[in-house]
C-alpha cells in the first residue's frame, strides 16, 4: 500500500537551524544507511583464515621496514605539499 502525501498546505521549515530555535544534534556518529551483512564474516573458517592472515601480515613487518614505510608515506604526502611536520 502506498499513500501519497496529503495536499494540505503546511508551513515549510526553511533551514536546518532556523532562527530562535535550540538545535540539539546527537553526540553519536549516525550512519546515513545501514550496512549490509558480509557473507565472509558469517563463515567461521573464513573468519579464522582472515584473522590468521592478518596476524601473519602484521608480524612479518619488521620495525626498520615499518619506519621506512612511514617515511615513504610522509614523503608521498609532502610531494603534494600537504604535510607540515
Amino acid at each position, binding site marked *: 500500500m502506498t499513500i*501519497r502525501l496529503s495536499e494540505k498546505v503546511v508551513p515549510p521549515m526553511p533551514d536546518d537551524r532556523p532562527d530562535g530555535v*535550540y538545535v540539539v544534534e546527537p553526540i*553519536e556518529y549516525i*550512519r546515513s544507511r545501514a550496512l549490509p551483512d558480509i557473507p565472509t564474516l558469517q563463515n567461521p573458517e573464513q573468519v579464522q583464515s582472515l584473522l590468521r592472515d592478518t596476524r601473519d601480515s602484521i608480524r612479518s613487518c619488521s620495525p626498520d621496514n615499518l619506519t621506512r614505510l612511514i617515511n615513504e608515506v610522509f614523503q608521498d604526502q609532502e610531494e603534494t605539499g600537504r604535510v607540515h*611536520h
Partner: protein
Amino acid sequence: MKWSNICFVTLGTASAVSGWLAFLPLPGDRSMNASQPGMLIHLRPWMAVACLGFAVALVVLRNGRYKRHAKPVTPSPWDGVTMSTMQKVMALRDEAVRSDKLTSVPIFLSMLLQPEKSRTRTVETISLEGRVVVQDVRVEMSLSALEGPWSMGTPASGVRGRLRGATAGPQQPSGEVYAPILTCLKREMVDNFEVRDRDGGSLDILCYEETIQLISSSLHFLIKLALRETHGGSSVTADRIDRAVVSFLMPICGRMSPKASATAIHKGLAYIGIGDDDLSDNVMWLKEFLATLDQAFPIVVVIPHTMDSQRLQISYRRTMVPPNKSRQARHRLRLTLGLRPVTMQMAPGMAHNSKVYHLQIKAPESQYLMEQTLRCTDCGSKLSNSEIETDGSQTCSHVKLSQEAEPYFQLLSKRGQNYAHLYMRGFTGMDWKKIRFTSSFGEVPPGTLASAVVTAATSLFLIGAVALAEARGLPRTSDVPALLLALPAVAASWFGFSSDNEAVLRSSLAARCSLLLGGLTSLAACALFILTRTVDHTQSIDSVTLMDNEMRWWGWVGLAYLAGVNFGYVLIQLIIRSGAYRRLLRKESVVNDNTVI
C-alpha cells in the same frame, strides 16, 4: 605600555576634555557673556560633537580588540600527525597481535558498523529545566542479538566459549570481549559516562592506546577482507598494505582538516588498488570504517569472561548551551528583552541505531507543551505513519516503502504537561537526516501574563484618573499622584524581569513587552504631571510654563490611549492562552489518533 593602551588613554582623555568644554561652565564664562558681544562661532556644539566622536572611536577600538582576541585559532590541516606519532601507532598494532585483541576484531567491527543489531532500546532525555540544556542518554544492549561465528552465543556457554570462531589461533585469548558501545563525534565531550551490566555492575573502558590497538588491527583485517573481493587483490604486497594502514591512521589519530583527511584516505585506497567506484560489500565496510573514525572515536568497553549476562546498559550525560541564531527582528527583540527560544529542534538520529527509541524533552514546571511535530527537513512537511520515507524522487513525496521494516512512531498527546515524548521503532534502515522533531513550549497561564495584566490595569486606572482630574482642573494639593503614577513602573521592573531567570526557556514575550510599555507609559505620565504642575494659575508668577494647556491635554490623551491599548492587548493574550491551556487539560485521549499534532 602597548600602543593600543596609549590609544585608549588618549581617546578617553580627549573625550573627557571635549565633554568638559561642551557641557560644563568654564571659569569667567558669566563675566564674558555679560561684558562681550556674542561669538560668531559657538565652541560648545563643536566640542559636543568632538566628545561624541572620541567616545565612539574609543568604543569601536575597544570592541575591535575584543573581537580580535576572540577569533579562534585555525589549526594546521595536519595537526598532530607526525612521524613519531605514526611509529607509536604502528607499534600499538604489533602490541594488539601480541595480546589477544585481534581475536575481538570481528565483534568490534560488527558493533561499530552495525550498532542497530545490538541496541535494543535507547532512551534520550533532554532537560530544559536549568540554565543549560542537559542531555541524558541510556542505551540498553543485547550482545546475544549479534549474528555470526563471533557472536556471543548462549549464556550458559560463557564468554570464552561464545567466541567460537574468533578464539581459534595460535595464541590463547584471555576471553575478554572488546565492545564499542558508543561512537562519539570528535568535537564532542561526554561527562558522567557510565557503563553497567544487567546486574548494575560497572564495566571497564579501554584507554586511548588500547583502543588504537584495536583500530589499527581492525584496519589491517578490513583491508585483507576487502582485497579478497577486489580484482587483483591477492597481488597487493604487504608493504603496500602497511602503507595504506599508515595513511588511513593519519586522520584517525590526528586532527586533520576535512580536505587533508580525504586526501589521506584516497591515497591509502590507491596503495591497495581500490578505487572510488568500488562499492562491493567488503570494500564498503572498509570505507565506512574509515568514514566513521574520521569523524568519531569509539568508546570501547571490556566485557570480562566472568560475566554471564549478555545485556548491558550504558548511560551518559552531556551539558551544553546550544547556539541561538537570531537574524530576524523578532528574535533579536526577544534576546534584547532577556528572553530565550521556546522551541527545541532535534534530529532523532539515535532511532536509526536502535530497535526502539524514546525521546523525552522536559521543560520547567512553569511551561507546558504547546506544539510538537515530526517533519521532513527537505520539504517541511509533517509526517504521519503512512508517509515517513521519501520515495527518492525529486518532488520529496513521502511514502512508506518497505514492508519488511515497519517504521512507526507515536507522539504523546498534548494535555498540558511540561514534556514531549516521541516513540520510534523500525527506523534502522532509513535516511535519518531527513527527519526533525520540533517541540515548542509556552508559559502556563496565568504566569507572567497575569502580572502584566494587573500592571497594565493599574497603569490605565491611574493615568485615566489623573488625566480626568487634570481635564476638570481640580486643584493639586499634594505630590501623591506623581508617586502613584510611578507605581506601575516599579511593578513592571519587579514582576517582569525577575521571572524565568533560571530557565533556558523564557517564553513571556507578550508579557514583557506589556510590562515594558506599561512602565514607560507610567513614567511618562509621572513626568508629564510634574512638568506641567506650574501651569496652575495660583502658583507664583515667575515659574516657567513648560507646556501649554493644549499640549498637556493631548499628552494625557495619548498616554491614556497607550495604557488602554496595552491593557487590551495583554488581556486578550491572557484570555486566549488560558482558553487554549484549559482545552488541553480537558482532552480525554492520551495518544493522538493520527500521531501528529
